[in-house]
């Protein structure tokens, strides 16, 4: 499969942006600059980027509590996101939502989500709209290995099949839901088979490898765009951080994190493949690294200087219109 150079450059830039965004957010949480509950996507960058590389602005995604990577991959503005995490009124959601609720409807980002498996049913609605409008759009929902055990996820998968809606279910197996292993929480041995039993094809990928996810997601999305109903992507890749910042991670095996960072790094794997194929040079990638670092630094500077919300804003945006209409 040959991928256009533009796509490759964009993919690397996006993965690097997610990586540096998350690492900086981690540092700012430790500094006490970012309040609330924040879950980092570091390590899983290739999933979001490999999937979203096939989407344009009018396709939709819906994300999870671990949402920064999905949102960046779908085109959310980094500076607006950083401001949101800092709680500024200039943030993407005016400081109302924070990390767990980053959204940008104009970009087809229907929101991160604080409720595990809150997203898939909503995504089916977006897919249904595409089907009714016959516009060839797809709706992607991201779910973790824990999220798929929620009734809403089962309902959404079955209903998408019944309605033949172009819904893409991306299952990101990072091996844990909070502190619980997938080996415990998913009762069967084969989550892919369990998902396929709903009646749609599921394409498996190594979640550390952009090229593998890109290929699997390409098949799933083509299937749905062609009017064949829902499809799934199943990608395995561990997260580098704890479930939340400060998680003691008592569930990890010895050497697990080191192995993840060393042998399953999406950025390293991408660079190695480029070095092998010669499609992108180290110099090109180094230049992107430098630009991304500068962009993240700037986003933090901007977020620290951004306007703070005021008390009168608390009750704004609850409704569009709330007084009795004449």
């Amino acid at each position: 499969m040959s991928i256009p150079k533009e796509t490759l450059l964009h993919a690397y830039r996006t993965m690097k942006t997610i990586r540096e965004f998350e690492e900086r957010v981690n540092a700012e949480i430790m500094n006490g600059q970012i309040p609330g509950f924040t879950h980092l996507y570091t390590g899983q960058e290739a999933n979001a980027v490999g999937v979203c590389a096939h989407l344009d602005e009018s396709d939709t995604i819906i994300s999870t509590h671990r949402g920064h990577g999905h949102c960046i991959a779908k085109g959310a503005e980094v500076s607006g996101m950083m401001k949101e995490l800092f709680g500024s009124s200039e943030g993407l959601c005016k400081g109302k939502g924070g990390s767990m609720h980053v959204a940008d409807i104009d970009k087809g980002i229907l929101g991160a989500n604080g409720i595990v498996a809150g997203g898939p049913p909503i995504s089916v609605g977006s897919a249904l709209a595409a089907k009714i409008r016959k516009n060839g759009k797809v709706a992607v929902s991201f779910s973790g290995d824990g999220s798929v055990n929620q009734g809403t996820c089962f309902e959404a998968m079955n209903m998408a099949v019944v309605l033949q809606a172009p819904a893409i279910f991306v299952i990101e197996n990072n091996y844990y839901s909070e502190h619980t292993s997938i080996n415990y929480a998913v009762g069967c041995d084969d989550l892919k088979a369990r998902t396929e039993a709903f009646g749609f094809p599921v394409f498996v990928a190594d979640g550390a490898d952009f090229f593998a996810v890109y290929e699997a997601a390409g098949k799933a999305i083509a299937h749905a765009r062609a009017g064949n109903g829902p499809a799934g992507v199943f990608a395995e890749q561990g997260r580098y951080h704890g479930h939340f910042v400060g998680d003691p991670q008592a569930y990890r095996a010895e050497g697990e994190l080191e192995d993840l960072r060393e042998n399953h790094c999406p950025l390293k794997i991408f660079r190695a493949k480029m070095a092998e194929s010669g499609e992108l040079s180290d110099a090109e990638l180094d230049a992107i690294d430098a630009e991304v670092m500068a962009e993240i630094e700037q986003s933090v500077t901007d977020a620290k200087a951004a306007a703070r919300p005021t008390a009168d804003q608390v009750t704004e945006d609850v409704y569009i219109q709330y007084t009795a209409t004449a």
Partner: protein
Amino acid sequence: MPEKTMRDAINEALHQAMEQDESVFVIGEDVAGCSGSAGDVGAVGGVFGVTEGIYHRWPDRCIDTPISESAIVGAAAGAALVGMRPVAEIMFADFIGVCMDQIVNQMAKFRYMFGGKSRCPAVIRFSSGGGFSAAGQHSQAMYQVMTSFPGLKVVVPSNAYDAKGLMLTAIQDDDPVLFFEPKILYQETADVPDEMYTIPFGEANFVREGDDVTVVAFGQMVPKAAAVIDALAEEGISCDLIDPRTTSPLDENAILESVEATGRLVIVDEAPPRCGLTADIAGLAADRAFSSLKAPIKQVCAPHSPTPFSPELEAAYLPDADKITAAIKATLA
């Protein structure tokens, strides 16, 4: 008496109930923790640490689950129907949205619909309330909503001492009990006896006693109101501070007797105002103590809005000392 945090007080109650009665078990997401992993199974004890150490003593009665709130509550309800005494943990009260049917259509109504022939001695624990910049889906109080459903008992402790006694009562109670733990109070300490004790449901606690104004507060608003009342005492204003401790059953008499004595009523809760506890108690007083009232009743609560993320917004959202003080003074103006 030893000082303990509210977290430790509830944890101790759970340990003691488990020791005493083999039909008690805990169930929920990460109540043991690390299940199925290569790491240290049982190391978590709930994300707030409330079930810490239970797995190591009773691995068969400390049950991790998948993320499946409907099935967790349903399993607790079902086990209770056949004679067990489950204590289920739903990590955040907001997740009631996921398991509402099992709570309100199922466990709440068994006994009534079955003509009084069943018992459902299940306890469902929730962390609840705001103050963490946790935004719209991890900050709600929710107990005010659940209070409206007949068949449920609803507990909201405001300190470590009450939390232990109320938890032991909840576990012994033969009806379904929803136990809301204001998460901002988990690390707050109080003197808590080592031995087991119970606090009856429907019996309010007079946190402060005074003559001028009756203040009723719930959960995390109780310590806030107490601080305000102590400050006002220096200005010569004295207040009753009533912590109902259980919103269902509600100690109506304690509230009415106090209002009859003071003639002034301020009610403080962190939830939004519509169909909430402040309106509920204002209604009670208007109905049953109207002739004693010397001033309009004041309700201090959150506005009719979801909980915002930004710390500045959340600080403006939640009732604070200024708002409570202003309300008390307004009844005296």
